[in-house]
């Protein structure tokens, strides 16, 4: 059923220039959030089914082991495999460690800090565990530093420099802005500009939500499917096993 109220609220976008900062905040966390959440879910599901419809090529080789066990093993251990390749790790230590830390820090920041807890409670209906302020601050600053290191390392390595396109740079820039605006919103004091700072943080997060399905950032959804298929594949055949 079409939600008339939502479209009425969204039509306020025509008055955006004349809105006060509090009205703008209400608009951003109201109809604009609903719209970005819809686009995020729609885009991801669309992409997933688009890939799903391509089908999986049949492997006619006789399974050398258990494809199922191999799938589970790969899902659990794949992120750690790199540490087994000492010569690769020694050449790309910074990228691997910063990449590892960034992903962990960023995910924990999204779900498990006190200033996001009530947002998830509103969306999911349950209260999530959350860290204290000291750990939250370490996560926030750690995510910023590791992202900057990762971004710089893209330029330092001639291969990743060539592989990096506008998509990668824009995604890095956008995530960095989301992180910095979140830190500023938390620390801001004086001049009564909190509504603008908070609006900026939420708006940037919404832009990121909308951008994810149409960019390589959607790897977080396809990653597990891809690793699972890879695990299944080498459970059937493959030189590495």
């Amino acid at each position, binding site marked *: 059923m079409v939600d008339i109220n939502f479209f009425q609220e969204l039509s306020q976008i025509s008055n955006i220039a004349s809105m006060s900062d509090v009205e703008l905040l209400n608009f951003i*966390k109201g109809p604009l959030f609903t719209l970005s*959440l*819809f686009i995020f879910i729609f885009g991801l599901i669309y992409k997933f*089914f688009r890939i799903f419809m391509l089908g999986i090529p049949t492997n006619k080789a006789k399974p050398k082991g258990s494809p199922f066990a191999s799938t589970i093993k790969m899902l659990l251990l794949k992120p750690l495999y790199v540490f087994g390749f000492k010569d690769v790790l020694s050449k790309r230590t910074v990228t691997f460690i910063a990449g590892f830390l960034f992903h962990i820090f960023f995910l924990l920041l999204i779900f498990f800090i006190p200033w996001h807890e009530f*947002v998830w*409670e*509103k969306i999911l209906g349950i209260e999530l565990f959350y860290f204290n*302020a000291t750990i939250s601050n370490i996560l926030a600053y750690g995510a910023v530093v590791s992202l900057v290191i990762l971004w710089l390392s893209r330029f330092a390595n001639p291969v990743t420099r060539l592989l990096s396109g506008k998509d990668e740079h824009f995604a890095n820039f956008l995530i960095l802005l989301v992180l910095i605006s979140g830190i500023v919103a*938390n620390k801001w004091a004086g001049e009564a500009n909190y509504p603008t700072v*908070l609006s900026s943080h939420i708006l940037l997060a919404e832009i990121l939500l909308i951008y994810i399905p149409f960019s390589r950032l959607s790897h977080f959804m396809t990653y597990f499917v891809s690793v699972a298929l890879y695990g299944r594949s080498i459970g059937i055949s493959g030189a590495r096993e």
Partner: protein
Amino acid sequence: METLYDSFRNHGLSRRDFLKFATSIAIYLGLSPMAYAKMVKELDSKPKPTVIWLELQDCAGCSESFIRSSNILPTEVLFDLINLQYHETLMSASGKSAEEAKEEAIKNNKCDYILVVEGSVTPKDSGVYCTVGGKSNYDSLLEASKYAGAIICVGSCSSWGGLPHANPNPTGAISVEEALPPSDREKIIHIPGCPPIADVMLSVIMQYLVEGKIPKLDNLRRPVAFYGQSIHDSCYRRAFYNAGEFAKSFDDDGAKNGHCLYELGCKGPVTRNACSTIRWNGGLSFPIQSGHPCFGCSEPNFWDNGHIYEPLASPNSDSFNKTVGAGIVAGVGAGVIAGAVSKWSAKKAQQENKNG
């Protein structure tokens, strides 16, 4: 001509009392020590300001607040510090003589009197929803505002429309600024709040009296001295916000330990007011200090700005399931259709290649 100082002395108050009063006003306004000397001199020599106080669509709460000014007694505010010529609730005259007093005050003090407006304006349906002395409040406002030196809108109703303006606004209530012609809007000072702090109202009147001009205002015509900071900026619980320590209910350990009320819906971060600095009842307390979140009563449309007890940063929607559900259904549908079409066209192309 009776000055404020004369008035203090006539009521048995000392020069020290007068200086204390002038100091309080100067401190509230955040004036420099140099300006304080000017404040004392001007209050010592200037005649009491003539004030016409109109009550439009209101609850009289702002008047109640005003007469509870903390540094001076209500009677002193009303009868000694200002020359209150008209106030429907407080004046002794009524009916025709009351209206005549107002007309006389306007005539005798052209461009010199302060018009204080409390309540929203209701021009809808020829102003039938609020009339005084046979006139709609809209007409009364236009008549009194034309020759006013300054128009002080006290309370959120006169400043933004307030509670009467809230959805569905059956009386078509609007703010004073919306009701006045553009030429008169330059004279407006907003002192929003439900109600505003009495000392703030009094200080703004005194500042206008001393300086003879509209004080420095922000983009919503609020005095910067009192509305230049958010409640969050100067809240004594701010350290708990930064530390991520929140009360989750009104009686949990967080609430008992004075933690931040953000999760209980505190709108302090988006509310410009002096509650956390001047506080209420002579600096005794303010809502957050009493354990209740600020609900942003001095901000425009605060009644329609979401639920009072909803955390500020949480999304304004109760239908996430619907949004997520719609996204999934639409995504599956579009993905499957697009996938099927591309498969079909690939098959067709393959077929054509085979044939051709």
